[in-house]
Each structure stands twice: as C-alpha cells, then as structure tokens.
C-alpha cells in the first residue's frame, strides 16, 4: 500500500519536473526568437518614434529596456519578472499585457473547448459510420472530403459560411462575440458562437475522422475480431465493445497532436469573425509589431498544448498500462504527426 502510494508520488513528481523543464525551454525559445531576429526591439517597442529620438534619448530608452545587458542577463531579468506575472507592457494598448489578455482569454477557451469536444465526438461517430460502410460511396466520399478540407485554408471556409448564413440567408450574425449592449444576453452570445464553431468544426472534423477511421479499419482486421465474428457477435457489438476500447489510446494521441492545429485554425477564424479572443488579439498585435503581447500569446498557447499532451500521455497510460513501460512506437508517432502537421 505504502509502496504504491510512493510510486504514485514519484510519478507525479516526475511529470511535474518534466512539465517545468519543458516550460522553461519554451520560454527560452520564445525569448530568443524575440531577441535574435534581425528586427530592432527598440523599434518594436517605440515604433516610428525611434526615428525622432536623439542620441541621448536612444541611449536612455535602451537602458530602460535593458538592451545593454548581455542576452543571458536580459533573459534572467525577463524570466524573474515573468514569474511575478509581469510580462511587460503592450506597446499597442499601453497596458500591462496580462490585463489585456484577461479580458479576452475566456472567449477563446470557450470557443476552442466547444470545438474540441465536438470534433472528438463527431469524428469518432463518423469514423465508426465509415468503417461500418467501408468501401461504399459514403465512406469514400468522407475520406476524400477529409483529404480535401485539410488543404483548404480556414479563412475561406469561414468566408463561405458568412456568405451563406449571414449575407444571403441573414439568419446569423457575422462578427463579434455579442451584439452592442447585449453582453449579458445568453442566446445572443450563443448565436454569435454558431458560425465560428461551425467554421472550425467543418475545417478540421473530416480529416480527424479520416485518421480515426484508418485506425479503426486496421483494428477490425485483427484476429480477435474474427474470433468474435465466429462467436456470432454482431458487427455493432464488436466495434463498440471491443474495437473502440483498443483504438482509444490512438484516438487520444490523434486529438493531442491535433490540438496545435486546431488552435492555430481557431485563431484565424477568430480574426475573420472579429471574435474577441487570443487569436484576434495576436493578429492585431502582429500588425503593430507588439512583440511583448505576441510572446505571451505564444507562451500561453504552448503551455496549453504541452499540458494537453501530458494529459493525453497520462490518460493513455491509464487506458493501456503497457505504455507506461514501453517507449511509444516512435516511427508510427512521427508519421502520424507529419500527416497531421500540414493544414
């Protein structure tokens, strides 16, 4: 009993250590991207005002931003401030970066969570549907759509949806998170959520379903399925009670690997629908070269993805205890990643 508790504790510590280390590396990478690119941080911070500055003002500005220190010192300073929640001031909004993000991050969280759950459930259902009708027209059609939508840019799908539902039919609003003065109105908020969710789901669902379908279609050819068939179990029963359980780890991995692409897509969609969230904030900041803001958005997104990946790993280890001891099949993993990696 004590032994198992100790093992759990050491497991949690190991995971926590991994997480902190990865986080540290991520912050290092993001920081050095910001400082090693040939752009001038001074210019990024003060904009065109740099050209009007005199020599002394320039020196003072450099001193204030700490640009005269070595890169390592700069990083340590930045990191210490970051630990206190101080990520600098947004150049565009002239406010603390975190206080700007505070106002919008819930919108993004809501949008992406809804989409993630929808894609997971619908993808799995579609995959089962495809495998039950394998080789028929529906199946081939869904696979083709999966490959095709994966290469269509999200913004185009979003624009088509706006054209159909907002311009021609006029049934749904095309921008914002709520109508003017309706911030507290729940139905109004939901109405504004419909098109962005639809756009994200349409651009990602099919490919996700296609990947899951391929996994499932390999699984139904396993020998135990043949045995189950011989026993006289129905196809439905075999898929739902046996195959699904076995492909769950793969499905969880697919969803985890999919997350960064889903988030990237969601950011684009937010921008198209002028939906106030991290994505539209990010693109607006990019227009003004507001790099403090971009740094934090990159960090936040990275943290969410890393956390989800670790969660997926833990879930997989719970689902299939062999995984805790074996190395995950690297080759298969990377080929899957390669296929998901291209939107």
């Amino acid at each position, binding site marked *: 009993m004590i032994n198992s508790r100790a093992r759990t504790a050491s497991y949690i510590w190991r995971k926590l250590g991994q997480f902190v280390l990865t986080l540290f590396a991520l912050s290092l990478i993001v920081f050095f991207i*910001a400082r090693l690119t040939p752009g001038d941080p001074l210019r990024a911070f003060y904009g065109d005002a740099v050209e009007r500055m005199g020599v002394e003002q320039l020196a003072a500005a450099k001193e204030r931003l700490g640009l005269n220190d070595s890169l390592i010192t700069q990083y340590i300073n930045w990191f210490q401030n970051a630990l206190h929640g101080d990520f600098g001031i947004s150049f565009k909004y002239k406010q603390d970066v975190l206080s700007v993000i505070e106002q919008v991050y819930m919108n993004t969280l809501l949008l992406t969570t809804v989409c993630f759950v929808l894609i997971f459930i619908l993808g799995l259902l579609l995959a089962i549907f495809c495998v039950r009708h394998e080789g028929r027209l529906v199946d081939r059609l869904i696979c083709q759509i999966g490959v095709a939508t994966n*290469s269509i840019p999200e913004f*185009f799908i979003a*624009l088509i949806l706006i054209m159909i539902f907002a311009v021609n039919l006029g049934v749904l609003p095309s921008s914002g998170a709520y109508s003017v003065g309706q911030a507290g109105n729940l139905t109004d908020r939901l109405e504004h959520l419909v098109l962005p969710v639809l756009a994200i789901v349409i651009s990602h669902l099919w490919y996700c379903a296609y990947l899951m379908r391929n996994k499932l279609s390999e699984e139904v050819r396993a020998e135990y399925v043949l045995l189950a068939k011989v026993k006289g179990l129905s196809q439905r029963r075999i898929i739902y009670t046996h195959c699904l359980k076995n492909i769950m780890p793969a499905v969880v991995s697919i969803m985890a690997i999919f997350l960064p692409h889903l*988030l990237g897509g969601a950011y684009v969609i937010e921008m198209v629908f002028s939906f106030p969230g991290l994505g539209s904030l990010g693109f607006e900041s990019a*227009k003004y070269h507001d790099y403090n803001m971009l740094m934090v958005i990159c960090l936040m997104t990275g943290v969410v993805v890393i956390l989800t990946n670790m969660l997926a790993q833990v879930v997989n280890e719970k689902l299939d205890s062999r995984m805790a001891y074996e190395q995950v099949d*690297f080759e298969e993993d990377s080929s899957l*990643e390669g296929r998901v990696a*291209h939107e």
Partner: protein
Amino acid sequence: MNRFNLNDQKRPYRSITILIFVIVGCIFADLFIPYVPSYMNAAEISQAPSSNHLFGTDAMGRDIFSMIWYGGRLSLFIGLLATLISTALAILYGCASGLAGEKLDDCLMRFTEILMSVPQILLVIFIQAMFGDATAVSIAIVIGLTSWMAVAKMVRSEVKQIRNADYVLAARTMHGGFFYILWNHLMPNFMSAILFMIITNLGGAIALEATLSYLGVGLPIATVSWGSLMALSQKSMLSGSWWTLLIPGIFLVVTLICITQVGEYTRTRNRREQLL
C-alpha cells in the same frame, strides 16, 4: 494496408494537368492578361463579371482575371522558396539528430517537440513581427523556418534505421564526410519517404501565405498575391459582390487540393513500395 484505400492506384492525372495549367498560366501571364494588374480604374469599381472584365473587378477597380494570374506567381514563388528552406533545414537537422548520440538526439527531438507545441501561424506572425514589415522573401523565409519540424522528425527516424547499415559504415571507415554520406547514402534512402511531406508542405506554405495576407499581417494589399487579392473581399462580399471572394478563392483551393492529391499519391505509392 493499401487495398483498403480504393482510389490510390490511379495516378492523379487530373490534378497534375490542372497544376501544370495553373503554373504555365502564371509564368506566361504577361502574354495574355488584358489589364495591368496593379492598375486601379476608379471608374470601374466592383463590377460583376462581364466580357470586358472576365472575372469582374474588385473594390479598388483592379481587374481580377489579370490579378489572379499575376498574383499566382508570387504565391507559387513563396510556396517554393519556403518549401526549399524547410526541406533543407529538415534534412540537415534530421540527419544530425539521427546520427548523433543518444543524449544529443534526445535534446534535439525535445526541441522540435516544443517548437511544434506552438501553432505554426502564431510562430510565423511572431517572427515576422520581429523582422519588421513583410516582403515576399521574408514571408517565405519565416514560413520555411517554422515548417521543418515534422519533416525533420521523419528524416531522423529514417536515418536511425539506416545509420548502421554496412554501406554507411563502409563509407565512414573510408573517412566519408558528413555531407558526402548525407548526399550519397542517406538522402537516396529517405527521399521517397519524405516526398509526400514536402509536397504537402508546399501546399501548406501557399495556404499560410494566403491566410496571412488575407488577415492583413502578410503582404500589403498593393503587392498582388492570391491572399492579398482576397484581403478586401470580406467587405465587398457584405455589399453583395461575391466574385471578389469566390473566384480567387476557388483558384487557390483548387490548386491546393491538386497539390494535396499529388502528395497523397506519393504517400500511398511509397507505402506500397515498402510493403512489396
């Protein structure tokens, strides 16, 4: 597993034909486009497709038919340059990681994983914002710098499998250098495995440039590409001029789907060869 995919035995002739048509049309655009693409005719703003303007004009009075062919050059150029950069980086990085010792290999792979945890589009706008205002070359470089990770992982796992093959060891004992072995022994072995990823990277780069330019963080509107061409379309669409959105969009999407089809074909063919 190929017998379960029903469509992959055919060569994608249709896609290849369309792609060649688009590429040739873009290269020789000067020969047949009726208007100067950047010419803004204030008298003919947002006109519907007619015999005068085959695909209509946009909100700035530019002829869309001319702009599509002319802008395609830039889009294809950005796609090609970005793919070239990302492929070169991926091959170097993947080989270095595959040939390195276990510790270094672990570190290098961790690095790619962390980079992959940030969505590519976010990395691109972040780096581009640091670079300053975007040009076609800078966008291509930034896209190239952010899309090599998945290919590098693939290269690494391929290299790991063949690094101890007799011919590689023989080349090493004869003091074959890193680049000699890479070029003569490693690359011929893994090129077919990563070819489909390179092709999908090409499509991805074109799509990414279009997205960035559309959202106003890529090329400026005055520089014509498929993305910047559509940057004005959302507003004009709301006023009813559907052609500013649909026609360039269909061009872009058809090109991307064709590239994907070719990529899918190389992937399934490669898998078949491995099975045989």
